[in-house]
Each structure stands twice: as structure tokens, then as C-alpha cells.
């Protein structure tokens, strides 16, 4: 359908202003963001739903990278906490940021900085599973929620993400490319236990600071979930002679 009508001109009766709604700005916003115009007959319920869906989608994304934004991320985190508390499935939260990003901006300019952010975003999105959620939560900060990620796989997953970004050469100008690295912190949701998004994010942040302090371009994950009892602990627990005495 035709959406090229400039906003100031009166739209065809009933089309762009169904039920007296002022939708010009909404339609402009969609067009500007490169999204398709709503489908269905203009003004119909289907068309309005499609417009709302597109706006919801737009408001859940980060404009620069197309990743989920902070709002979507926090919603996903809360949902995951709910699921973990109910099902006991392990879930991992990774939080990461680009090492020495300020230097990239200062040395090469903000356009180069934006290109780096976009390149890192692509690398992250390509490295995780479809069920994982990658979000840009701040300037050069990203978070990834990984549902149903067993504790044993955590370090591998984080390391795969780190090396994938490390390998990527970012072209910041014709014939000029730079390499960037990221530091990653991670924490598992405590199984069966309802935590809060804030607490979980803080725990992952603590690990990120650790990765930064230990020299950057590395992954630090919080030690195994507290309710798990390691073989070592069991060994000591049953090391006493009292168990040998029982038939």
C-alpha cells in the first residue's frame, strides 16, 4: 500500500486517520527506521494491530544496533528469573563491554565508535543461540541472557563470544580497520530460587569488574551456583569414619 503521502497533506479520508486517530508521526517513525508499512486495509483493525506491533517492535530495539534495548532486556531477565524459580533450569547472564572504547572514540572519532559498536553487536548476535537474548544496555555495554545453559558450558560459551569479537577486524574507514576486544562477566541464576533482576545483574557486574581488573579481554564467571554440592565437598562430607562403621 502507499505510505509515501507526506505528513502535512491531508490523508485520504479514513485511511491515515481512522477513528480520528493522529497516526502520521507513528507512520513516519516506521518509515524512517526502515520498517515496512502496516499491512492490511488502511484503517482496519488488522492494519491498526500491525501498526501497533511495528511500534512495539521499534520501541524494544536499540536504534544503532538493532539489538534488544535495555527495556526489553529487563523484561526478559524478569521472565527468565520466573522460569528458573519454577523449573530449576540453569540460566546464565553475561554482561560485557568493549575494552578501551573511549580511546576508540578519542582517536578515531564517534563515527568509528558507532561502527565498532555495530560490528561487536553483529558478532554477538551471530555467536549465540536463537533462544538467547542479546541487548545493548548502555553505550559500549551489552548483556546476554542465556536460558537453559548448563553450568559446565558457561565458560565455553563466554570464551566463544570473546574470541569471536577478538577475531573481528572493524573497518572504520576505507582501507582502515581496527581490532577491539571485550571483557565478559557472568553469573548463573540460583536454581529454584527467586532472585531479583537487580541482584542478578549486580552479580554479573562484579565478575565484569574482575575481568577488567585482571587485564581485560577475558571472561570471569561466578563460581558454581550455591545450591550445588561439588564432588570435592561431598568427598569431605563423607570422609569421616562414621560412614565406614555403618552396615
Amino acid at each position, binding site marked *: 500500500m502507499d505510505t509515501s503521502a507526506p505528513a502535512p497533506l491531508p490523508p485520504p479520508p479514513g485511511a491515515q486517520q481512522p477513528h480520528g486517530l493522529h497516526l502520521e508521526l507513528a507512520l513516519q517513525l516506521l518509515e524512517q527506521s526502515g520498517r515496512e508499512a502496516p499491512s492490511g486495509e488502511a484503517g482496519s483493525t488488522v492494519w491498526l494491530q500491525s501498526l501497533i506491533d511495528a511500534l512495539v517492535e521499534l520501541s524494544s530495539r536499540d536504534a544503532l544496533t538493532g539489538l534488544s534495548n535495555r527495556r526489553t532486556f529487563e523484561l526478559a531477565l524478569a521472565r527468565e528469573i520466573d522460569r528458573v*524459580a519454577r523449573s530449576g533450569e540453569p540460566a546464565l547472564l553475561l554482561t560485557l563491554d568493549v575494552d578501551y572504547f573511549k580511546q576508540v572514540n578519542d582517536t578515531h572519532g564517534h563515527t568509528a565508535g558507532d561502527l565498532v559498536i555495530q560490528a561487536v553487536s553483529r558478532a554477538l548476535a551471530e555467536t549465540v543461540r536463537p533462544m538467547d537474548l542479546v541487548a545493548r544496555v548502555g553505550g559500549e555495554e551489552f548483556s546476554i541472557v542465556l536460558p537453559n545453559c548448563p553450568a559446565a558450558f558457561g565458560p565455553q560459551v563466554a570464551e566463544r563470544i570473546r574470541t569471536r569479537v577478538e577475531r573481528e577486524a572493524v573497518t572504520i574507514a576505507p582501507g582502515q580497520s581496527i581490532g577491539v576486544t571485550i571483557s565478559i562477566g557472568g553469573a548463573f541464576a540460583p536454581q529454584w530460587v527467586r532472585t531479583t533482576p537487580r541482584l542478578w545483574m549486580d552479580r554479573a557486574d562484579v565478575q565484569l569488574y574482575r575481568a577488567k581488573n585482571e587485564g581485560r579481554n577475558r571472561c570471569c564467571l561466578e563460581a558454581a551456583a550455591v545450591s550445588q554440592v561439588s564432588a570435592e565437598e561431598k568427598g569431605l562430607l563423607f570422609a569421616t569414619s562414621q560412614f565406614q562403621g555403618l552396615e
Partner: protein
Amino acid sequence: MSSATHAGAGARITAITSGKGGVGKTFVSANLAAALARQGQRVLVLDADLGLANLDVVLNLYPKLTLHDVFTGKTTLDDAILPAPGGFSVLLAGSGMIEYSRLTPAVRDLLHDVVVRVRPRFDHVLLDTGAGISDVVLYTVSLADEIVIVATPEPTSLTDAYATIKVLAANQARRSIRLLVNQSQRAGEARAIRNQLQLVVDRYVNTTLDEPLTIELLGDVPLDTSVREAVLRRELLLDAWPGSAAAQALVAAGARLLGA
């Protein structure tokens, strides 16, 4: 983290929990309550095993009114608090509480409300929690002033007791937990178990804490055929076989709980 109900006078609130199920947690709660009642204490056992409550079975009660009815507003708290054999009071969960087995804000508020309201009316409230370390159990435990973990000498029970202790140390900043060993098979076994648990806690948990967690042995209830008999007859051990070794051990544990 201090309990939400600490403020103000009222009952001392003790959570009885276990990690693993089937270790005699409800049996211990009921008989410990009877032991406290014999010391002249006004005692309430709150059946906080919302998913699989069975205090009514242990006590041979067929309540018309339960915690469920309080939650749904069908009855008042006063009407749901029932006298139990043994001279204490009970607030039973009853079946049909399965929808409360998940900690929603509503369940949390209701549990909190019930605990706050019963607190001024008793000297001692025992919270008989469910097995495991679900969020309902952890929340119930968070309402208590002190925690008793019931464990048997079986390795699986000890592992789960240890896991529970770890979680409580980390999530609730508990620094003192009491242990009651049920079905111990020989003298000194409970003490040895307590010492071994403390050793593992010192090595793997206390190294991560600012202030060390201490496990205190509250009781050592020996394996005793009279327990099985009393359970099958659905009577309190303290009523059925007050002279048995297990009953004496529970009375001693009750006295220790009061002495604290």
C-alpha cells in the same frame, strides 16, 4: 539479613526444614511442639509445606478449616487455629494448597501476614516447611528467627542439608543454624555428623563469608522402633511412648531450644 518479623515482642519463630524429604521433619516438628508445650509454652505449629502438607496426617486431624481457607478469606485466622493432641495449636495447610506452591507476591504477602498475626499470641511458633529449597521454603525460612535443619545420617540427606546450609548462608546471611539428627544409629553419631558438616562449611562456605557460620547440634534422636509404631498409629511419640529413647531425645531438644 534480619527477619521481617523480628521487631516487637512475641513468639520466637523457628523454621524446621530439611533439604531432603522423608527425614521425619513433620514428625520432629509435632513432637518438638509437644515437648515445648510440656514446658508450659504456648506453641503453634504452622504447616508451611504448602504443596504437600501432611501435619494433619501425622496428628490424625481432619480439619474443616485450613490455611487455604484463611488465604481465600473463607475463614478467620482465629477459627483456623486448632488445638492439637499434645497441648499445642496447629494451623494446617490442608490439601488444595498446591496453587500456593509457587512464591507469587500474593503467597508471600499472605505467609508474611499470617506469621505477623500469630506472633503476639504464642511463645513459640514452629514453621514446618516443605522439603527442598524451593522459593516458598526459602521465603518461609526467611521469616524465622532461627533455623533447625533435620537430617538423617544418610549421605543423601546430609548432602541436601549441606546444600540448604550453603543457600541460607549466601541468600539470607544466616550465621547460625541448628542441626537435629534423626534416626541416628549409635552414640556420638550426631556429634560426628555435626562436626563433619562444620568442617565442610568451614572449608567451602566460611571462606566466602565475612563472618563464619556455625552449626549447633540441637538434638540426636536415635533410631527407635517406637517411632514407627507411633507414626503408624498416628499418635505423638511423646504421648504414645514418652519413655522411649527417641521421645527423651526430643524432650531434650525442646529444652535446648528453650534455653537459647
